[in-house]
């Protein structure tokens, strides 16, 4: 979505335009769900948090600043809702054992996620990510998966860009260590999953 289209959408959203909402929903729903699912390690929790993110978005739509950037707005709300969710549940920091919670249950045919996760490399990467502390996980998800710059991710997480860079550096080291804990050296794994 280019900036001009984004500004037009924001203007229409401020007037509560349903079609504009549908466009934003189509552009961000899967991305937000993936972020929340991998952050929480639970499909159910991610669905609830996603619903609340969208409801907050439409309730605040008329108050959006005309120059609002939609991605940071949405990811900040989603991330903050996840923080509240964790506080309310006093959850453990990692969810390595909860990976299966992301898989659709009772599906007659394997979803793309199931098929790929069955792949050893993907499974190991997913497990390693899930075993990281939540602050490291959210940093990696925002920067590596969402493609945000460390500065943008810092704004979403409410920390300084420098703190985000440090967090990313630690997260990357931890991820490498966890992947190396298996039998295959990290570089081999990364080559397999890098185009």
């Amino acid at each position: 979505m280019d900036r001009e289209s984004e500004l037009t959408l924001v203007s229409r959203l401020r007037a509560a335009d349903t079609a504009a909402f549908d466009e934003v929903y189509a552009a961000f729903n899967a991305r937000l769900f993936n972020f929340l699912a991998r952050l929480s390690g639970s499909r159910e929790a991610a669905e609830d948090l996603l619903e609340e993110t969208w409801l907050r978005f439409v309730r605040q739509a008329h108050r959006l600043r005309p120059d609002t950037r939609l991605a940071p707005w949405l990811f900040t709300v989603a991330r903050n809702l996840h923080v509240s969710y964790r506080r309310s549940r006093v959850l453990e920091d990692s969810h390595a054992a909860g990976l299966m919670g992301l898989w659709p249950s009772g599906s007659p045919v394997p979803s793309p996620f199931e098929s790929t996760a069955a792949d050893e490399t993907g499974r190991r990467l997913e497990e390693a990510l899930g075993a990281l502390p939540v602050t490291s996980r959210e940093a990696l998800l925002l920067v590596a998966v969402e493609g945000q710059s460390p500065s943008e991710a810092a704004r979403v997480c409410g920390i300084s860009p420098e703190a985000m860079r440090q967090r990313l550096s630690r997260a990357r080291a931890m991820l490498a260590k966890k992947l190396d804990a298996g039998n295959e050296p990290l570089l081999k794994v990364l080559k397999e999953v890098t185009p």
Partner: protein
Amino acid sequence: MTDDPRDDLDLRSLRELPLITPRAGRNQRVRSRCHEVLARRRWLSAVTAQVLGVVRDQRTRRRPHPAAVPQE
């Protein structure tokens, strides 16, 4: 590390993680709820505009036009 995440090979590998999709039924319900909120907002804006219009009309009617005020 530069500011561009694409420069980082380790991080780029995570982009290959498969997309997980939310359940369709749930999606539909969420969209419907959001549409309702937006519809309520449009209705509220329309009503507010009408009320403000009426108030503005009344004020205009009460205030005499400058040309109607007798000049000394």
